[in-house]
């Protein structure tokens, strides 16, 4: 059945209208903290602290947070660190996940089901279970405070999700197309490029967007392994909390800057997001 086309036979129009209005009300309440933060980000610090609006709205705070104070983490540094870590890790995830999904969906290996469940079980292992050896070895190999260590870990975080999700999209590629390519003797790489990828492209894009979201928002590893110069966006947002003077408007602007890229990514991927979140079990 198509999304939201349900209209009960005996239902009256006024009932449907009521549901719609209730849904809008709920959504506006739920989004209110974000909307209020957006509004605050355009206020002056005095207005923000008093939760009033006497001095008008401007982009002033966005200008302020872009100014870097020497000795502190700047927006530019954190943004570049996040951007590099997120893009490189997502790219590696796709390079590893696409062939794996091929071996699990198109020409399944023996015991492919066990392999799939192995991937997901790594996601269930609490991060504290592996953080100490990672920390000890990162220290030994001089990887603390580098982008490299975060890239290595974010690939591991997102790989299970990407394998499950791309597999689920590969399953939808019509068998006849693949068999035709196989009869023509096309190699795996060519099969992927000419037959499978064009059909699964929207799904792969959604997978990449989800990986971007999770890597961008990650805080635990970034805090443990990557303080100082290698810090990413979550640490930069927190650095805008000040113990001296008012900071609420600047913090709100920083929050908006930090969240905007992934909010847009999430909106773009929302139709296919459920498949990734449920590890491919739901569509």
């Amino acid at each position, binding site marked *: 059945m198509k999304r939201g086309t349900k209209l009960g036979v005996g239902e009256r129009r006024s009932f449907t209208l009521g*549901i719609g209005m209730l849904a*809008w009300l709920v959504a506006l309440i739920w989004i209110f903290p974000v909307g209020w933060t957006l509004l605050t980000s355009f206020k002056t610090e005095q207005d923000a602290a008093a939760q009033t609006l006497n001095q008008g709205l401007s982009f002033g705070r966005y200008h302020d947070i872009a100014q870097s104070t020497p000795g502190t983490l700047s927006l530019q540094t954190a943004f570049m660190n996040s951007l590099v870590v997120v893009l490189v890790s997502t790219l590696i995830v796709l390079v590893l996940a696409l062939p794996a999904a091929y071996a699990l969906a198109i020409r399944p290996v023996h015991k492919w089901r066990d392999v799939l469940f192995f991937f997901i079980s790594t996601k269930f292992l609490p991060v504290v279970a592996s953080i100490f050896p990672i920390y000890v070895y990162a220290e030994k190999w001089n990887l603390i405070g580098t982008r490299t260590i975060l890239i290595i870990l974010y690939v591991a975080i997102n790989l299970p999700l990407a394998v499950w999700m791309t597999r689920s999209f590969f399953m939808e590629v019509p068998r006849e197309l693949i068999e035709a390519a196989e009869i023509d003797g096309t190699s795996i790489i060519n099969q992927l490029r000419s037959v499978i990828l064009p059909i699964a492209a929207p799904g792969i894009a959604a997978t990449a967007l989800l990986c971007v979201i999770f890597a961008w928002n990650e805080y635990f590893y970034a805090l443990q392994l990557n303080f100082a110069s290698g810090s990413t966006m979550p640490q930069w947002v927190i650095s805008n909390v000040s113990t001296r003077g008012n900071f609420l408007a600047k913090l709100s602007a920083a929050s908006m800057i930090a969240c905007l890229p992934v909010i847009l990514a999430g909106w773009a991927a929302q139709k296919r997001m459920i498949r990734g979140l449920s590890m491919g*079990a739901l569509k």
Partner: protein
Amino acid sequence: MTAAAADVALKGRVGDPFSSAWRRRLPLLPALLYSIAVTQLPFLVSIYYSFTNLKDKTQSLIPEPTKFVGIDNYKQIFSDPFFRQAVWTSVQMTVFAVVLSLVFGTLFALLLDRKFLGQGLVRTLLITPFLLMPVVAALIWKQQMFSSLFGLLDKALTFLGLSSVQFISSHPLASIVTVLVWQWTPFMMLIILAGLQSQPGDILESANVDGASGFGIFRQLTLPHLRRYLELGALLGSIFIVQAFDAIDVMTGGGPGSTNIPYYVYQESIGGGFRYGSASAYAIVVVIFSIIIATFALRVLSSLFKDEERA
């Protein structure tokens, strides 16, 4: 190729690296080996650490040699009242957050399952809190809502002539659960919505023709159909929420009533204690808890998964 034929091909040429079985496995190996190297090997090392008195060498003036201590670290767990407190906090935090976000998520999904003006936009607005950086979500609630200096809740209480409440310091657990519920409700909503939309329409219609009431249909048909989706939401939600760290770090930085197990392990180790040996033992105990939840989660997942294959 059928499964039986694949099996024959597999058994026919075991050991030959160029056989078709190995050619099939080859594309899988990089991802598999990567996952094992980065997630499983450190876990095995953690088990080893948990039987030693390993401490961070750079953190102490007189480094002690690392030696085996047997099960001392594990014995210590059972006599540690702070750990017991953290376990109880973890249980409360996870149960409250999962149950409340499931309830809200189900209600929202039922609303969104109808056709109305701006349905897509409402859905987009509702999922937005889930997309927010957890750190930002916690900061928004801490500073904009709960703060006794400039929080809106405090302003509202003052406006109503009531005395202000130190939300976070007097109700740390409730404050953190609020943020978790706010972020995880959209997740539950999407799972339940997928369940509602997989419900066969013809059965609902015939029930409607037979004159069943709306509530009757919901209880007799929709709720049993949703059961597995509710289970899936609860289990996946538990697995993620039991590991909550960001909201605690931002809102309270630990403390009585808000330190869950992951945060406690963090404080014992990288967060200041630097006792990797004993902290590893705590971590192993967390893993045992997680395996119990995960076993149930995998069972539900695999039953949904088999249905999908049949469909």
